[in-house]
């Protein structure tokens, strides 16, 4: 459930709000419905990991990945796939830690 909510929120905000909004989404979702730290982190991580890669592919596939290939070379990566993965991981980490923070804050207020 938490995974789905973060997924939907980050997908919806994806193209028109600044990228760090995913952190707020993950944080508040986990604050309200998060269960355990592990569940919160991985739900947050996976949701944005997937959303960022899908959104990036939306742009990159009609481009035949020409830009992604060039930028991968810029970062000295062997191919655009690596760049896509790093994109997902960075988004995932931000969201995962934000979700974890949301949950831990909720725990702190719970008796």
């Amino acid at each position, binding site marked *: 459930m938490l995974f789905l909510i973060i997924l939907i929120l980050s997908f919806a905000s994806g*193209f028109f709000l600044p990228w760090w909004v995913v952190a707020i989404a993950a944080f508040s979702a986990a604050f309200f419905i998060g269960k355990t730290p592990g569940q919160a982190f991985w739900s947050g991580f996976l949701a944005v990991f997937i959303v960022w890669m899908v959104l990036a592919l939306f742009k*990159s596939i009609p481009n035949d990945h*020409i830009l992604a290939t060039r*930028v991968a070379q810029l970062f000295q990566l062997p191919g655009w796939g690596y760049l896509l993965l790093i994109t997902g991981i960075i988004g995932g980490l931000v969201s995962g830690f934000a979700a974890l923070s949301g949950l831990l804050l909720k725990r702190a207020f719970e008796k």
Partner: protein
Amino acid sequence: MKFIKAFLSIAFTLILIWALQRKFGPVPPLGNFLSPADGFWQNAESKNILPTTHLMLPELTGRVTIKYDENRIPHIFAENEHDLYYAQGYVTATERLWQMDIQTRQAAGRLAEVVGPMALETDRYHRRMGMVYGAEKTLKAMMQEPAVRQMILAYTDGINAYIHRLHPRQYPIEFKMLDYAPEEWKPINCAFLLKLMSETLAGGSNEFAMTNILRRFGAKTTNDLFPDYPMHEDPIIPVGTKWDFKPLPIPHPSASFLGQMNDSVKRAIKEEGIGSNNWAVSGSKTANGYPILANDPHLDLTFPSIWYQIQLSAPSVNVYGVSLPGAPCVILGFNNNISWGITNVDADVLDWYQVKFKDNKKDEYWYNNQWNKTNRRVEVINIRGQEPLYDTVIYTHHGPVVYEDKTKKAAGSHDFVPVGDALRWIAHDESDELMTMYILNRGKNYADYRKALTYFNAPASNFVFASKDNDIAITPNGKYPLKYKDQGKYILDGTDPADDWHGWIPFDQNPTVKNPPRGFVSSANQSSTDPTYPYYINWSFAPYERGKRINDRLTAMQKATVDSMRILQTDTYSIRAQDILPTMLKYVDASKLNQDQLAALNMIKTWDKDFTVNSTGATILGTWWAQLYKMIWSDDFADKSLQNNYPSVDRTEQLLLKEPNSKWFDDIRTPAKETCADIVNQSFKAAVDDLSKKYGKPGKGWRWGLVKKMEIRHLTGQEAFSSGNFESGGTGSTVNALTGGHGPSWRMVVQMGPTVQGYGILPGGESGNPGSFFYDDMLKTWQKGELKELLFLQSTDEMSDRIKTTLTIGSK
């Protein structure tokens, strides 16, 4: 405990987000750069382009239709001139905004503002040499001419209309990489661009080195080694052309004065290959009876391309060609009646004056037998991550004192700039080059061409011309200072009015020729005229080889077609090899060569003197000649103050061909007395040994295309956005002057006639976005030496299946 855990987790998350929004060294802020919402992914352009789109821009007064062809070249149709230049600004910005921004910053000395202290010296130099001072004056002149003023304001508004619509996620990728935002375009930026062209083409000098050479070797030797007219020449204005004017009296030379300079310096090497070709052939020599014009300006090749192709059409004008991103109009191109092209003259329009200050305060300087007040100009240089630098520049009536003492001249700055000297440079003067372009864009005939040229000051350019009326012409044109002969070959005396520029060569006395009997006109940066021209333009020009080859070919040509011109533009036959190789070979003593050297000797003996991609002879001659040239001069010119400013290639050839007993062949560092034969043999062996070491035994590995480096680099220098090294024929002294990163930045051939037909190709593409399909889509065609037929539409209704997208813009 729970609170601490929560606090730590929140803190870590915030730090992570903060770190991902921050630029570390050259690494862009990773969160911003990689996120699909804001980052580079947004710059990936889709291959699916809508066939028609509409846009609303309230500042337009009428309706604009822009048709994009298969290379995304815009064909703009507007109902009036305001809208035309407005749309040109808008469209250029959509493809080239970052290029426009960074080039303006470079010219204006504002790079450090975005890239930090590493660009500070570049900025200081541009400020101190008076780029801003010159641009401000030029802007003033441009704004006084109503047509140009209206054009620049509309163009500026068009660019800004685009910038205002941009969301940060749509910024060109370079802004995201360097982490800064585009700023409003200002009319002065158009002036900065023109100054940058002047700097590229007429901003270097070797007066400092020449002065040191004069002091070291004396006048007789210096005049012998650095003559005012070369042995080999084929001037732009054909020999024998009559000067039908009464020249002004030539000023008298001043009591000569040598600057007192002895700083240690390196040389600002004048690269061979920065130059250009253009020519026009009269109808009497063409297949269809109308003139053909060709132009290929050689510059530092870059991504994005220097030029932006465009068609501009309004009721008063319909013109096609290439524009400079950041300036309105077509700069090189054609319309239904005329076509024109440009190469660099390399006039002596930059001089240094030794200043005598009264004291260390430098408030006064000695001139015309009295103390005169200096002016001061404070340049504020903003530096990213640091406090701004306030740099004060002293001005005399000549211009800025670029470095008034050694403390002002930082390590790594330009070595050709002498310390304690004021700079007099044509680019400091008011000028209105855009008026030239405005008139040419609408030009109907020869008279319009002549009128247009009167507005052009700098960088002085060889304007070639051809018209439907069967006129051809060429004019090495610009605002030339009136000087005594060789005034400015050496550093001048800033105290003596006799060394000032003495006014100007009247425009109508600039060298020019119309419809010469030989049936063609041409230029390739060689001497503008033979020595009978009464005025001094410069004492040295580019070597004559490209010009000679072009003239040889055009002389032989009958029933010329567009393809004859294309073949000539990509010609790689070496006149230099033709001139010197037989003599060089004559001296080689085969009995003293080892096996590799013999093999190489056979290769070069059977070589056809053509610098083709697969030629090994080209590699041997190129390396051999470089060795020979160095061996002759490096001993005599070892002193650092001479800045490796060796005598010209032409003078060295003269030594080889006509003065084999000259003392200059002797290597003064060895006890033996070397002769011409010794040096030729030594240099041959050294060249072959060097090649064997680098490329193996003489053979296929020595192919010219493999040995010569050629790459088109992105302006950031990032390999990922560059072309990568590719094989190509040609060299600096062949017509197809591909060498290092230089070469034909635009090739154009225009067949005049009842219906004009243009052909052209850019070494890149229309788009500046590495994420666009149009970033380098023309590169392959350019590499193959082919041209594309240019789509020149006569009206917005004209149909063509090459049109892929139509954009309409209205105020509603």
